[in-house]
């Protein structure tokens, strides 16, 4: 059973075809790694899936629905940059999620804030990038979503905290949910991936299970280096 189906998916910025006639399906219930070099369209693809980019060609379906109001109800998205208003305190952000997402668990979010040492009344604008990332993770992972889309979830976190964050994600995502994670930190995350989608040059280069890809002893990072060795 597939959760995401893309057909003839294309998106360009001016003359730059970031996604070019892409076809792919992604299986439900897997932890999917989205890999590719910088500027290959990973974030663009994620924004299309979350309904933040609309002017693309082709079609994308999530659980059979075009990204929109219906899919937003079961898709939890962690963007690369912080999205919380400057004036919001951590508790305001929790209340905001509680107001709009029926699958949001407020108590769980408050527990997570405590765990990360984030005071409820601290304002977003007074927090460091790492603290803001922890806040966003707490919000997103407190949802019982069917699909989690995490764009570079550990981009702003120091190496010592990464393992903790990874455990946090893996412990807190809802049962039977699908995780789509984009990252350059392949080594840190490769143990959790069960499926991999490599994109580059606007095309899907690899879309297969990690088991099949690594059966001859290669790691995801080895495959990444092989596939994108000609980029630089």
């Amino acid at each position: 059973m597939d959760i995401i189906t893309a057909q003839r998916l294309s998106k360009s910025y001016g003359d730059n075809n970031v996604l070019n006639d892409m076809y792919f399906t992604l299986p439900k219930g897997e932890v999917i790694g989205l890999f590719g070099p910088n500027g290959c369209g990973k974030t663009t693809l994620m924004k299309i899936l979350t309904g933040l980019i609309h002017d693309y060609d082709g079609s994308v379906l999530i659980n059979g629905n075009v990204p929109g109001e219906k899919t937003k109800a079961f898709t939890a998205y962690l963007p690369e940059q912080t999205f919380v208003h400057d004036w919001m305190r951590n508790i305001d952000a929790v209340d905001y999620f509680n107001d709009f997402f029926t699958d949001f668990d407020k108590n769980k979010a408050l527990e997570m804030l405590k765990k990360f040492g984030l005071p409820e009344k601290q304002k977003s604008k007074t927090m460091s990038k790492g603290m803001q990332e922890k806040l966003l993770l707490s919000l997103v992972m407190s949802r019982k979503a069917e699909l989690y889309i995490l764009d570079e979830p550990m981009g702003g976190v120091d190496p010592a905290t990464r393992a903790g964050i990874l455990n946090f994600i893996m412990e807190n995502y809802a049962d039977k949910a699908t995780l789509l994670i984009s990252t350059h930190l392949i080594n840190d995350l490769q143990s959790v991936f069960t499926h991999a989608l490599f994109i580059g040059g606007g095309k899907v280069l690899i879309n297969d299970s990690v088991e099949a890809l690594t059966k001859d002893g290669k790691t995801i990072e080895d495959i990444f280096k092989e596939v994108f060795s000609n980029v630089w």
Partner: protein
Amino acid sequence: MFGKLLKNDLKAQWHSISTIFLCIAFVAVGAEIFTLTTKQQAMKVLGGMLVFIALGFACIVVLIAVALMFSKTMFGRAGYLTLSIPVKTSSLLISKTVSGLIWIFSVYALFIGSLFLWVYQVKQTLGNQILDSVESILTIFGVPSFLTIFIGILFFLISLAVLTLVMVQALQLSITLSNISPISKFGNIGIIVMFFVIFLVVQTVTTELSDLLPIGFVVDADTVKFTSNIVRTKAAMGGGGLSIGICGSIFRLLAAIGLHYPTVYLIQHKINIK
């Protein structure tokens, strides 16, 4: 869900608008102290006028703040949050319009209140002398009836509300358009130009329609007449009374509703959150 949207939009807007209200409060307190301490009568009158002018200025600033907030929460960093929640785009826009109007009308109310306060201060400072003069002028030209004044003020407030709604909708459309390539290249200038173009078109059509279809009311003493031609009816009534054309306001209201749909369409089909 709409109630929750409205609550959050009011909260978000309050955080940028509260500074304006704080400034008004400072001006008001300063003006009041100045009025109480100065011995010159003319200066006492000017003190009250200062609050009135500050609030007039605040009406424009609040409109700009509402527009900036719309841009920030829809297409800025916070757009990730706003556009990730499972609600209809039209609900998002209506909530932002309603919450914006609530703040704008609050400043209007304070502005009108300050006008009355100023008149009161003038009366206190200069006695009934000025008011008597105004009354004498009105008597010469004919004192309008209570009904005429009431309907005149009521219609003025309705027209102002509709005009503000058009401005808010025109701003939302121009900000949305300015986030679409290739217009996005022009930045804030693009927003300003598009706002004035949209607003000018609405105003021109409003004026033309009002001339073509002079439907409205003519209020004279204690009678209100609905007529298909206010100019002819007013002339037939001897030229007295107050004529109120409603065609323009009806068109403006329809234009405001009409401007909502292209904004929704653009957000649903053309907008890319950066």
